Protein backbone atom coordinates (compact mmCIF):
# COMPACT_ATOMS: atom_id res chain seq x y z
CA UNK A 1 0.00 0.00 0.00
CA UNK A 2 2.57 2.56 1.06
CA UNK A 3 5.43 1.90 -1.28
CA UNK A 4 7.05 5.26 -0.94
CA UNK A 5 9.20 6.24 2.04
CA UNK A 6 8.43 9.94 1.65
CA UNK A 7 4.70 9.25 1.59
CA UNK A 8 4.98 7.30 4.81
CA UNK A 9 7.11 10.04 6.37
CA UNK A 10 4.56 12.73 5.49
CA UNK A 11 1.58 10.86 6.86
CA UNK A 12 3.49 9.77 9.95
CA UNK A 13 4.73 13.31 10.58
CA UNK A 14 1.17 14.63 10.36
CA UNK A 15 -0.10 12.25 13.00
CA UNK A 16 2.96 12.63 15.21
CA UNK A 17 2.38 16.39 15.31
CA UNK A 18 -1.32 16.00 16.10
CA UNK A 19 -0.75 13.34 18.75
CA UNK A 20 2.03 15.40 20.35
CA UNK A 21 -0.33 18.35 20.66
CA UNK A 22 -3.11 16.19 22.07
CA UNK A 23 -0.56 14.78 24.51
CA UNK A 24 0.19 18.25 25.86
CA UNK A 25 -3.55 18.81 26.30
CA UNK A 26 -3.91 15.55 28.22
CA UNK A 27 -0.95 16.41 30.45
CA UNK A 28 -2.35 19.85 31.24
CA UNK A 29 -5.73 18.33 31.96
CA UNK A 30 -4.38 15.79 34.47
CA UNK A 31 -2.37 18.52 36.17
CA UNK A 32 -5.52 20.64 36.43
CA UNK A 33 -7.47 17.70 37.84
CA UNK A 34 -4.84 17.33 40.57
CA UNK A 35 -5.07 21.03 41.38
CA UNK A 36 -8.84 20.78 41.65
CA UNK A 37 -8.50 17.85 44.06
CA UNK A 38 -6.10 19.93 46.16
CA UNK A 39 -8.46 22.88 46.17
CA UNK A 40 -11.42 20.72 47.14
CA UNK A 41 -9.53 19.16 50.00
CA UNK A 42 -8.59 22.49 51.55
Amino acid sequence: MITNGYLFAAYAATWIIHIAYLGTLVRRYSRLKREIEDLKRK
Partner: protein
Amino acid sequence: MKRAFPILGILTAILLSYALYLALVGAPTEQTMGDVQRIFYYHVPSAWTAFILFFANFGASVYYLIKRCPKADIVALVSAEVGVVFCTVVLVTGPIWARPVWGIWWTWDMRLTSTLVLWLIYVSYLFLRRFSSSGQTPLLAAALAVLGALCVPFVYFSIWFFRTQHPQPVMGGGGSIDPRMLHVLLINWLAFSCFAFLVCWSRYRLETLQREVDEAHAFRSLTDDPRSNR
Protein backbone atom coordinates in the same frame (compact mmCIF):
# COMPACT_ATOMS: atom_id res chain seq x y z
CA MET B 1 -23.78 18.20 25.40
CA LYS B 2 -21.03 16.22 27.06
CA ARG B 3 -22.26 12.93 25.67
CA ALA B 4 -21.99 14.30 22.15
CA PHE B 5 -18.23 14.45 22.42
CA PRO B 6 -17.40 10.71 22.51
CA ILE B 7 -19.94 10.03 19.77
CA LEU B 8 -18.46 12.72 17.55
CA GLY B 9 -15.02 11.41 18.41
CA ILE B 10 -15.82 7.94 17.18
CA LEU B 11 -17.51 9.26 14.05
CA THR B 12 -14.50 11.44 13.30
CA ALA B 13 -12.12 8.52 13.81
CA ILE B 14 -14.15 6.46 11.36
CA LEU B 15 -14.22 9.31 8.87
CA LEU B 16 -10.47 9.84 9.20
CA SER B 17 -9.80 6.14 8.63
CA TYR B 18 -12.01 6.10 5.56
CA ALA B 19 -10.33 9.24 4.27
CA LEU B 20 -6.92 7.67 4.83
CA TYR B 21 -7.97 4.54 2.96
CA LEU B 22 -9.20 6.66 0.06
CA ALA B 23 -6.01 8.66 0.00
CA LEU B 24 -3.73 5.63 -0.03
CA VAL B 25 -5.75 3.15 -2.05
CA GLY B 26 -8.95 4.63 -3.42
CA ALA B 27 -7.50 7.60 -5.25
CA PRO B 28 -5.95 7.00 -8.65
CA THR B 29 -2.19 7.16 -8.90
CA GLU B 30 -0.89 10.32 -10.42
CA GLN B 31 0.99 9.98 -13.69
CA THR B 32 4.07 12.12 -13.28
CA MET B 33 4.71 12.01 -9.54
CA GLY B 34 3.47 8.56 -8.66
CA ASP B 35 2.50 7.58 -5.15
CA VAL B 36 4.27 10.53 -3.53
CA GLN B 37 1.51 12.76 -4.86
CA ARG B 38 -0.80 11.23 -2.25
CA ILE B 39 0.80 13.53 0.30
CA PHE B 40 -1.42 16.13 -1.37
CA TYR B 41 -4.45 14.63 0.41
CA TYR B 42 -2.99 15.51 3.80
CA HIS B 43 -1.07 18.65 2.85
CA VAL B 44 -3.91 20.65 1.27
CA PRO B 45 -6.72 19.92 3.78
CA SER B 46 -4.36 20.86 6.61
CA ALA B 47 -3.68 24.17 4.87
CA TRP B 48 -7.37 24.92 4.36
CA THR B 49 -8.16 24.01 7.96
CA ALA B 50 -5.36 26.24 9.23
CA PHE B 51 -6.66 29.19 7.18
CA ILE B 52 -10.18 28.70 8.50
CA LEU B 53 -8.89 28.58 12.07
CA PHE B 54 -6.82 31.74 11.59
CA PHE B 55 -9.87 33.45 10.15
CA ALA B 56 -11.83 32.35 13.21
CA ASN B 57 -9.09 33.90 15.34
CA PHE B 58 -9.52 37.18 13.48
CA GLY B 59 -13.29 37.12 13.94
CA ALA B 60 -13.07 36.28 17.63
CA SER B 61 -10.46 38.99 18.20
CA VAL B 62 -12.56 41.66 16.51
CA TYR B 63 -15.58 40.53 18.52
CA TYR B 64 -13.52 40.73 21.68
CA LEU B 65 -12.34 44.25 20.88
CA ILE B 66 -15.95 45.36 20.42
CA LYS B 67 -17.76 43.40 23.12
CA ARG B 68 -14.98 42.43 25.60
CA CYS B 69 -16.55 39.00 25.93
CA PRO B 70 -14.19 36.51 27.70
CA LYS B 71 -15.53 33.58 25.68
CA ALA B 72 -14.43 35.31 22.50
CA ASP B 73 -10.97 35.61 23.97
CA ILE B 74 -10.85 31.86 24.62
CA VAL B 75 -12.03 31.15 21.07
CA ALA B 76 -9.27 33.40 19.75
CA LEU B 77 -6.63 31.60 21.80
CA VAL B 78 -7.89 28.14 20.87
CA SER B 79 -8.18 28.83 17.15
CA ALA B 80 -4.69 30.33 17.04
CA GLU B 81 -3.13 27.36 18.84
CA VAL B 82 -4.84 24.67 16.79
CA GLY B 83 -4.26 26.72 13.65
CA VAL B 84 -0.53 26.76 14.36
CA VAL B 85 -0.59 22.97 14.81
CA PHE B 86 -2.22 22.47 11.41
CA CYS B 87 0.05 25.06 9.86
CA THR B 88 3.06 23.14 11.20
CA VAL B 89 1.73 20.03 9.46
CA VAL B 90 1.57 21.97 6.19
CA LEU B 91 5.15 23.23 6.59
CA VAL B 92 6.44 19.72 7.36
CA THR B 93 4.55 17.80 4.68
CA GLY B 94 5.36 20.44 2.05
CA PRO B 95 9.13 19.89 2.02
CA ILE B 96 8.67 16.11 2.39
CA TRP B 97 6.66 16.29 -0.82
CA ALA B 98 9.00 18.70 -2.55
CA ARG B 99 12.13 16.67 -1.98
CA PRO B 100 11.36 13.59 -4.13
CA VAL B 101 9.51 15.59 -6.77
CA TRP B 102 11.78 18.59 -7.31
CA GLY B 103 14.94 17.46 -5.55
CA ILE B 104 14.94 20.38 -3.12
CA TRP B 105 13.52 20.64 0.38
CA TRP B 106 12.35 24.21 0.09
CA THR B 107 11.41 26.60 -2.64
CA TRP B 108 10.19 30.15 -2.24
CA ASP B 109 6.98 28.91 -3.76
CA MET B 110 3.97 31.17 -3.35
CA ARG B 111 1.97 28.86 -1.13
CA LEU B 112 4.76 27.51 1.06
CA THR B 113 6.24 30.94 1.66
CA SER B 114 2.88 32.51 2.52
CA THR B 115 2.17 29.63 4.87
CA LEU B 116 5.54 30.15 6.54
CA VAL B 117 4.87 33.84 7.12
CA LEU B 118 1.41 33.03 8.44
CA TRP B 119 2.95 30.51 10.81
CA LEU B 120 5.44 33.12 12.01
CA ILE B 121 2.71 35.70 12.63
CA TYR B 122 0.57 33.34 14.68
CA VAL B 123 3.49 31.89 16.62
CA SER B 124 4.41 35.45 17.59
CA TYR B 125 0.77 35.85 18.69
CA LEU B 126 1.13 32.80 20.93
CA PHE B 127 4.37 34.20 22.35
CA LEU B 128 2.61 37.45 23.22
CA ARG B 129 -0.08 35.51 25.03
CA ARG B 130 2.49 33.55 26.98
CA PHE B 131 4.70 36.50 27.90
CA SER B 132 2.20 39.15 28.85
CA SER B 133 0.71 39.40 32.31
CA SER B 134 -2.81 38.09 32.52
CA GLY B 135 -4.74 41.29 33.05
CA GLN B 136 -4.16 42.87 29.67
CA THR B 137 -3.41 39.77 27.60
CA PRO B 138 -6.80 39.48 25.88
CA LEU B 139 -6.77 43.09 24.69
CA LEU B 140 -3.15 43.11 23.52
CA ALA B 141 -3.56 39.74 21.82
CA ALA B 142 -6.73 40.88 20.06
CA ALA B 143 -4.93 43.98 18.77
CA LEU B 144 -2.05 41.86 17.49
CA ALA B 145 -4.48 39.41 15.87
CA VAL B 146 -6.15 42.23 13.93
CA LEU B 147 -2.80 43.54 12.71
CA GLY B 148 -1.69 40.05 11.79
CA ALA B 149 -4.85 39.33 9.84
CA LEU B 150 -4.59 42.64 7.98
CA CYS B 151 -1.06 41.67 7.02
CA VAL B 152 -2.20 38.53 5.19
CA PRO B 153 -3.25 40.13 1.89
CA PHE B 154 0.05 42.02 1.81
CA VAL B 155 1.92 38.77 2.33
CA TYR B 156 0.20 37.25 -0.67
CA PHE B 157 0.72 40.26 -2.93
CA SER B 158 4.34 40.75 -2.08
CA ILE B 159 5.25 37.09 -2.52
CA TRP B 160 3.18 36.87 -5.74
CA PHE B 161 5.03 39.75 -7.32
CA PHE B 162 8.36 38.53 -6.01
CA ARG B 163 7.71 35.21 -7.67
CA THR B 164 6.77 36.74 -10.99
CA GLN B 165 10.15 38.49 -10.89
CA HIS B 166 12.01 35.42 -9.65
CA PRO B 167 10.16 32.36 -10.96
CA GLN B 168 10.35 29.23 -8.87
CA PRO B 169 8.95 25.72 -9.25
CA VAL B 170 5.30 25.66 -8.30
CA MET B 171 4.41 23.03 -5.79
CA GLY B 172 1.09 21.33 -5.87
CA GLY B 173 0.80 21.99 -9.56
CA GLY B 174 -1.66 24.21 -11.32
CA GLY B 175 -4.35 23.23 -13.73
CA SER B 176 -7.47 21.14 -13.35
CA ILE B 177 -7.80 18.24 -11.00
CA ASP B 178 -9.18 14.78 -11.71
CA PRO B 179 -12.70 14.61 -10.20
CA ARG B 180 -11.87 11.38 -8.37
CA MET B 181 -8.90 13.09 -6.75
CA LEU B 182 -11.06 16.07 -5.89
CA HIS B 183 -13.50 13.72 -4.20
CA VAL B 184 -10.76 12.17 -2.06
CA LEU B 185 -9.40 15.62 -1.27
CA LEU B 186 -12.78 16.87 -0.06
CA ILE B 187 -13.39 13.79 2.08
CA ASN B 188 -10.03 14.29 3.74
CA TRP B 189 -10.82 17.94 4.26
CA LEU B 190 -14.13 17.05 5.89
CA ALA B 191 -12.42 14.51 8.14
CA PHE B 192 -9.71 16.93 9.23
CA SER B 193 -12.24 19.70 9.79
CA CYS B 194 -14.22 17.46 12.15
CA PHE B 195 -10.98 16.51 13.85
CA ALA B 196 -9.98 20.17 14.19
CA PHE B 197 -13.39 20.99 15.63
CA LEU B 198 -13.05 18.30 18.29
CA VAL B 199 -9.52 19.41 19.18
CA CYS B 200 -10.69 23.02 19.47
CA TRP B 201 -13.61 21.96 21.62
CA SER B 202 -11.31 20.03 23.97
CA ARG B 203 -8.89 22.93 24.17
CA TYR B 204 -11.79 25.30 24.84
CA ARG B 205 -13.01 23.18 27.74
CA LEU B 206 -9.48 22.88 29.08
CA GLU B 207 -8.97 26.65 28.96
CA THR B 208 -12.32 27.35 30.60
CA LEU B 209 -11.43 24.92 33.39
CA GLN B 210 -7.96 26.48 33.74
CA ARG B 211 -9.43 29.95 34.15
CA GLU B 212 -11.92 28.74 36.75
CA VAL B 213 -9.07 27.15 38.72
CA ASP B 214 -7.01 30.34 38.44
CA GLU B 215 -9.95 32.35 39.73
CA ALA B 216 -10.42 29.91 42.58
CA HIS B 217 -6.75 30.26 43.51
CA ALA B 218 -6.98 34.04 43.40
CA PHE B 219 -10.18 34.03 45.45
CA ARG B 220 -8.62 31.63 47.93
CA SER B 221 -5.57 33.78 48.45
CA LEU B 222 -7.74 36.85 48.95
CA THR B 223 -10.10 35.30 51.47
CA ASP B 224 -7.71 32.99 53.29
CA ASP B 225 -7.70 33.52 57.01
CA PRO B 226 -4.05 33.00 58.03
CA ARG B 227 -5.10 31.84 61.48
CA SER B 228 -6.98 28.86 60.05
CA ASN B 229 -3.84 27.39 58.45
CA ARG B 230 -1.87 24.97 60.58
